[in-house]
C-alpha cells in the first residue's frame, strides 16, 4: 500500500468532519457526515477490521444518516408537515473571539492526551490513523461547545466518538484486539441509539415550537 493512500485516508475524514461541522447549511452538513462515515469505514477496512467497517457503513453511515435527515424533516414518510427548517443559523454568530475561547479547553485536553500518548509505544502500522483520531476528538469537542444547534451538537458528538474509536483501535496491540473491538462495537451501537433518541427529540421539540408559534399567532388574530 503506497503511503499516499494512507495519508489520504487519514486526512480525508478530518476535512470532511470539519466541513460537516462548519457548513452553515444543515442538509449539506448531514450529507457530508454520511460521506465522512463511509470514509471512516474505508479506514477500518484498510486497518484490517472488516467487521468494524461493515458496522460503520450500516450503523454510522446508513442508519445514523437516515435519522439525521429525519430530524431535518426529510424522509420517505411525509405524513407530518415538514418542521420549520433553520439552516444552521446559530443564535450566537461565530466570531473569532468565541471560537478561540472555546478552543482553549479543547487544546488543553488534546495536550494532555498527546502527553499520555507520547509515553506509549508508537503505533507501527497506523500512525496516521492515530493522529486523525486525535484531531477528530478535538474538532468534535470544540464544535460541541461552540454551537448551540442541537443537530450540530449531535453531529459533533458522533465525530468525537469516531475519533475515539480510531484512537482506541490504533492503541491496542495483539492481546487487546478482541476487547478493543467489543468496546468499539458497543460504542457504535450506543452512538447510534443516542443519535436516534436525539433526532426524534429534535423533531418533537421542533413540532412543539411550531405548534406554540401557530397558537400564538391565532391568539393574536383573535384578540
Amino acid at each position, binding site marked *: 500500500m503506497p503511503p499516499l493512500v494512507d495519508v489520504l485516508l487519514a486526512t480525508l475524514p478530518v476535512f470532511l468532519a470539519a466541513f460537516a461541522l462548519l457548513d452553515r447549511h444543515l442538509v449539506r452538513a448531514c450529507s457530508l457526515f454520511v460521506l465522512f462515515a463511509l470514509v471512516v469505514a474505508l479506514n477500518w477496512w484498510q486497518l484490517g477490521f472488516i467487521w468494524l467497517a461493515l458496522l460503520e457503513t450500516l450503523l454510522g453511515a446508513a442508519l445514523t444518516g437516515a435519522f439525521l435527515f429525519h430530524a431535518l424533516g426529510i424522509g420517505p414518510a411525509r405524513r407530518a408537515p415538514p418542521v420549520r427548517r433553520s439552516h444552521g443559523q446559530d443564535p450566537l454568530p461565530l466570531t473569532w473571539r468565541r471560537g478561540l475561547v472555546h478552543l482553549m479547553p479543547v487544546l488543553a485536553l488534546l495536550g*494532555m*492526551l498527546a*502527553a*499520555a500518548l507520547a*509515553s*506509549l509505544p508508537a503505533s507501527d502500522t497506523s500512525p496516521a490513523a492515530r493522529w486523525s483520531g486525535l484531531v477528530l*476528538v478535538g474538532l468534535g469537542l470544540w464544535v*460541541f461547545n461552540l454551537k448551540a444547534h*442541537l443537530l450540530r*451538537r*449531535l453531529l459533533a*458528538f458522533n465525530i*468525537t*466518538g469516531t475519533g*475515539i474509536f480510531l*484512537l*482506541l483501535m490504533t*492503541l*491496542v*496491540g495483539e*492481546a*487487546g484486539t*478482541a*476487547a*478493543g473491538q*467489543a*468496546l468499539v462495537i*458497543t*460504542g457504535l451501537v*450506543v*452512538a447510534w*441509539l*443516542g443519535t436516534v*433518541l*436525539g433526532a426524534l*427529540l*429534535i423533531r*418533537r*421539540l421542533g413540532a*412543539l415550537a411550531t405548534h406554540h408559534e401557530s397558537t400564538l399567532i391565532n391568539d393574536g388574530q383573535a384578540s
Partner: protein
Amino acid sequence: MIERLGLVTTQLPTATSSAMVLLAVVMPVLLGVLGGAWRPLRGWPGLALALIPLLALLWLVQQIAVHGTQAWVLELGSLTLHWRANGLTLLLLLLTQWLVLASAVYTPAYLRVAEQALGRGAVWLWPLMGLLATSLSLIWMAADLLTLYIGLELMGLTAVGLILLPGREEALAAGMRYLLLALIGSLAFLLGVALLLGSWERLDLAGLAVVVEPSPVLWVAMALLSAGLLLKAAAFPLHAWLVPVHGSAWTPVSALHAALVIKASFFIALQLWLVLAPQAAAAAWLVGGMGAAAVVWGGLLAWRADKLKDVVAWSTVSQLGYLLIGFPLLIGTSTAVASIAWAGVWLQLLAHSLAKAAMFLAVGNLMLATGESRVSGLAGASRRFPLSLLSFGIAAISLVGLPPSAGFTAKWLLLHASLAAGQWPWLVVLAVGTLLSAAYVFRVFRYSFVEDVEREDYRPVPLRMDLVALALALASLILGLTATWPLALLAIAGGTP
C-alpha cells in the same frame, strides 16, 4: 482495598448460585416486557413475580455469608468477561430490586391519578424500568471494564428514555440536555478505558490492579474516567442538569433516578480509584473538596428552592457530597481509617437511596393531593394528608442524620473516620450539611402546618401510594436499627467470610 471489593477470589461459583444470579439479572427485563405487553392497572401481579429475583438474592446473601465471595469468568470467543458477587454487590443488588419493586407497585396508581390522558409513554415505561434494573445489576456485578462500559451505557440510555416519557415540553428539553451530557460523559469514559487498554492490554479490574503503575497515561486515563463518571453522577460543579431532569420526570422515575442511577456512576468511580490509584491522596482531596462544596451549595439551594421537587433534587446534590467525601477518607489513608470510612460510605449510599426514594414518592403524593407544586402550596397538608407527611418526616430523619436512622449511623462512621485520619475539614462540612438539611426539611414542615387556609379542592391519593412511600421510609429507619447486618456483609472480604 481490592479484597474488600471482592475482586480477589478463588471461589468458583456453584451451578445453583449461577442460576440465581442469572435469575436476578435477567428476570427484571422479562417482567418489563410482560408489563409493556399487558400494561398492568394494578401493582400486585408485578409484585408477586418480582419477589422471585428478590428471594433469589436473599438465598445468594446466605450463600456468600457462609462461603465468601464468588466470581464468574465468562468466555466469549477470545473475550473474557468477569463478574463477581460479594457482600457489597449483594447489598446493592438487593437495594436495586427493592426500589424497583416499590416503584413498580407505586406506578400504576400514580399514572391513573396523575396522567388523565395516557399517551404512548406508558407502553415504554415497563420495559425501560426492567432494563434499568438489569443494567444496574450488571454494573454492581461487573469486575471488568467492558461489562462496566456496557452496563453504564445501557443504564444511561434507559434513564434518558424514562425521563422523556411524560412527553411534555420541559421533560423533552431536560431530556435532550441530559442525553447530550450523558453521551459526552460516556465518550470521556471510553477514552479513559482506551488509554488503559492501550497501555496494559487488559480490562479485568483484578489484573489491572496488579499491573498498573503510576505514569502520565494512568493520570490522564483516571482524569477522563472520573470526569465522565462524575458528570453522570451530578457531582458538584457538574450537577446543573439534575434539577430540571428530576423536576419534569414522573415521580417514580425521579425516585429511581436519584436513588440508583447517579449512585451507579459514583460506585464505578470509587471502585476505579480504589483499584487503579489507591494512593492518590492529593487527587482524592480534590474530589473531597468538590463533595464539600456540593454539601453546602446543594443544601443552600434546597433551602431556597420554590418547588417541592426542586427541594428534593437539590438535597440529592447535597447528599451526594457526603459520598464524595469518602474519596479522601478511603484513598491514601491507613487501613484502620479506610475500614471505618468503607462502612460509612456504603451505609450512606444505602440510607440515602432508601430515604430519597421515599421522599420523592411522599412529595409526589403531596403534590398530587394538593395540586400544587410549590412548597408554599402545602398549607393545610398536615391535617389532611398525615400519612404522606409522616413518610416525608421519617425519610427526613435519615437525610438529616438523626438517630436511630441509617443516615445517622453512616454520618457517625464518616465523622469517626475523618477524626481518626485527622482530616478535620470534613467535620465542619458534616456539621454544616446537617444544619442545612434540617433547615430545608423544616421549611417544608413549616408550610404544611399552616392551618388558616380555606381550600376544598384536595384530591386524596390512593392509600397504596402512601403505603409504598411509608414502606421505603421505614426501610431507611430499620436499616439504621439493624445496621450490624449490612455492616457485617460489607466486612466480608476476599474468599473467606
